[in-house]
Each structure stands twice: as C-alpha cells, then as structure tokens.
C-alpha cells in the first residue's frame, strides 16, 4: 500500500504530428503500479470462512459496502460464485459465510 501509487512510465507520448495525410500515432510502453488491497474484516464468527473463500477475489471494502440483504440472498450469491465464476469456494463454508455477512451488516445497521 503506502501513499500514492506511482506511474512508472509517465510519458505516454502521443505525437500528433504530420500535416499531409494521417497524423502519426506513437504507442509507448506503459506500466503502472496499483495500490494494494488490504484485508480488513471485523472480527466475528465466520470471518475465517470469508477470508478463505471470498477475499481473494473480493475486496473486504466491497463486501462491507453491500446493501443489507437476507441470509438466503448471501447463500445464493455464494452459490452463484461456485456455479458461474467457478470460484473454489468450499460449499460447506457457505452457511458460515452467509452468517458472517448477515451479522456484520446487522452490526453496521445498529451503528447507523
């Protein structure tokens, strides 16, 4: 993480030169460094199941930003990740994952 991500190749020259026919377009090599994605999930039952099955693909920040939905909805979302996106989610962990999300969202709602 640490402060601003840097552009390694800041000069992305696009030479719009020439006047006769087509302008010349120059493509340069480009490289960027993206910020890290820290794992920051509140403590609670099922947290480990979420870390093991969800956070490799989903930012914790994104998980925690979702609107409050039912346990059944979270279970169906986890099932969709297996069926559609072939995510290596342990099916036996789904109740724990759904339980964690419901509890975290309820705690968030109480805090509002």
């Amino acid at each position, binding site marked *: 993480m640490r402060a601003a991500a840097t552009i390694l190749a800041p000069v992305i020259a696009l030479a719009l030169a020439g006047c006769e026919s087509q302008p010349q377009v120059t493509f340069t090599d480009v490289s960027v460094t993206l910020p890290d994605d820290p794992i920051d999930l509140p403590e609670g039952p099922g947290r480990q199941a979420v870390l093991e099955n969800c956070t490799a693909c989903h930012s914790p920040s994104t998980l*925690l930003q979702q609107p409050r939905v039912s346990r059944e909805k979270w279970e169906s979302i986890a099932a969709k990740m297996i069926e559609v996106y072939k995510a290596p989610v342990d099916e036996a962990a789904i109740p724990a994952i759904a339980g964690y999300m419901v509890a975290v969202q309820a705690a968030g709602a109480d805090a509002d």
Partner: protein
Amino acid sequence: MADKATQSQSGARLTRRALIAGAGGAALAAPVLAQELGRMIDLGLPGGPSLRPLQPAFPGKRDMIVQRIRPPLLEAPMGVFREGVITPNDRMFVRWNWDMPTAITAAEHRVAVGGAVKAPVSLTLDDIASAGEHVEVVAINQCAGNGRGLSEPRVTGTQWGNGAMGCAKWTGVRLKDVLAKAGVKEGATRVRFAGLDVPLTDGAPQFIKSIPLDIAMRDDVLVAWAMNGEALPLLHGYPLRIVVPGWFSTYWVKMLSTIEVLTGEDDSYYVAKSYRMPARPITPEDKDFDTVSITTMPPRAFITSHADGEGVALGKPLTLEGIAMGGDAALARVDLVGEGWEVPCELGPDEGPYAFRRWRVTLPAVTQDLAKIGVRAANATGAVQPDALNWNPSGYARNVIERITLVAQ
C-alpha cells in the same frame, strides 16, 4: 499480494491453495484499512452503507470514489460535472470486471481479427493506426449499473452513485476499417471483442462482449487509442478500446486483443446471461420474466449547481445548472420539474448527439422551498425520463428523474 499480482500478470490461474495463501498472507500483513482512508464521501444510498473513501490513490487519477480496489472500480464525485461537458481523464470513472495487466509492451501487442472472416489477421498497433481515416467522436461512457446504489428496494452489485459516467473525445479508426483488414464473410451477424483482462479462476467466464454487425459497421464506432487528446490511460484500456457511442460502456471493451466475427447469436456469459434486464417492467416480487440485453442508453439529466438540502435565498432569483444527455439519440429538451409545475431549460453548446450538453434555467424569485425538483431530459426519438424508477434486479439503465429539495432561507 505481490505474488498474486505477478501471477495474474503472467496469465497463471489461481488454485484454491494459492487463493487461501494469498488471503491469509494479506490478512497478516494488512493493518486496518478504514483508519488509513481519511476523507470519505457520502453517496446518499438509501439505507446505507453510504460512505465511501476517496483513497487509496490510483495512477493518473485524482480524488476518485474508491468502490473497489481490485480490480478497480472508481467513481467520479458529482462535483466533476459542474463545469463543461468533457470529463478530464483523471476524473473519468474506472470499471474492470477482472484483473488486467499492469504493463503493456507496445511492440508486442497484437489484435487478432478472426472468426467469420476471409483471412484472419494479427494486427500490430501501427497496423491499427494505419487501418483507415482517423476519427474523433465526443461520446458519453456510462456504466450500465450507474446509479445502482440508489435503487429502492436496494439490489446487490457495485453500489454506484451516479458518477459511473463521463464524456470524452475519443480518437481512433473505424472498427469497420479494422474489420476490412480481414474481410467480413457473408452470413456474419455480430462482432465480439475480448481484452487482456482475464478471470482469476479456471473456468470462469472471460469478459467478452459483442454488438450486432450493423452497429459494428457504423461510421462512429471506433477502435480508439486516445481519450481527450492523450493516449488512453492504462486504467481506461491502453493501448486500444472499443467505442460505441450511445451504448453502455460494457460494450466498450478495453485493452482490445481479439475481434471475432460471429455468424449466430452470442451465447457467451456476459451477453447471454449477464448484463440483461427484464423485457417488460416488473415489480421486486416478480421472479420469472423474460430478459433482454442492455444496449443503448436512455436520456438522463442532473442538477450540478446545487446539492440536495442546500439553502437558496428567499425572494431572490435562482439560477440552476447541470448536464443532460440524450442517450442513443440527440438531446431534444430539458425541463425543470417540480410538484405540479415545469419550466423549460435553455441548452448550452451542442458537442454532438452522444455528448453531455449543459442546461440552465433561472427562476424569477424563490417564494418557498423547492421541494422534490428535478430535471427531465427528452431525446430526439421521443424518449423521456420517467417519474418512477424502472426497477430491475440488477439496477441497470437507471434514468428516473433525480430529485432534490432546496430550502428557501
């Protein structure tokens, strides 16, 4: 995390073990995110959670709402739209479905043109740039899910406010000139695009999208390399992206690497199963309904001069300003609407049918609170923004009139 980035760049897929190891390592290494984030912005999402950080910083980006760090989802704060019609590159929203490479070697990049073509070709960037006349189009790039977070009842997915949109001048060659390099065969129906972003897991659907052949052959559908006169930033799809003016940005495939001409329907996941909405209006209780692909954009308008709840001077004239768009056709008119009244707005300079256009209206005097006012855009085909949300389970194509209340004081 570094390992994971390296793996995804090299195209290797993650195994379950690697996924767990990656998550565990990051958990140990990472301190508390929220405390590092500093400045937050409130998107006003009904029922919350509504606060979003404006950090961490991303390369070439300034003060963006961070909806997701990996793969990046960055939203423009609405203040970006207060002036002009062009969205600066450092304020344009960013949306990736899957991780993308973080480095591009220009000399090695190729665009494969294949499928139902006379002679498949593999084109260099110079081949693309010399494929035809260079064309500039000013067009709005808007996520199909823009405004999803404002849906009531709420729906899951990226919880965008209304800032997953922007308007830029795109430069490139016509897609049809690139297709001509390979020669489209008789019987072609659609043209499909793939980029360098690939799924993390084996078997997950690649993010590929297709458009009908007649759209692909339009004079303003581009293979673009520049955005507002600069090379496409990597986060916007360097070196090349598709531009389909009037269509939602899901079709504007970034880091273009493959163009495939199809002869039938497209049964790939992101066309046949995802990015779809009900064929007819539904209620949140409806479960079984036919769906259609989201394609063209409907008209929208926004008040940018004032925020909800802001005070305005009682007895004084009031000027309101903002932006509007016609969607897939030119903007025809914008009206300021309240409860039981409406006033036509004056339109600003016309930058083309697919661009934002500014509007402005002056009320002679504020006599009371301006409750639930909004602006309503209509386009040249007669499409008008509706009073009620066209609710759908994925929160696509929001274009309900956005209303605010201004308090006379």
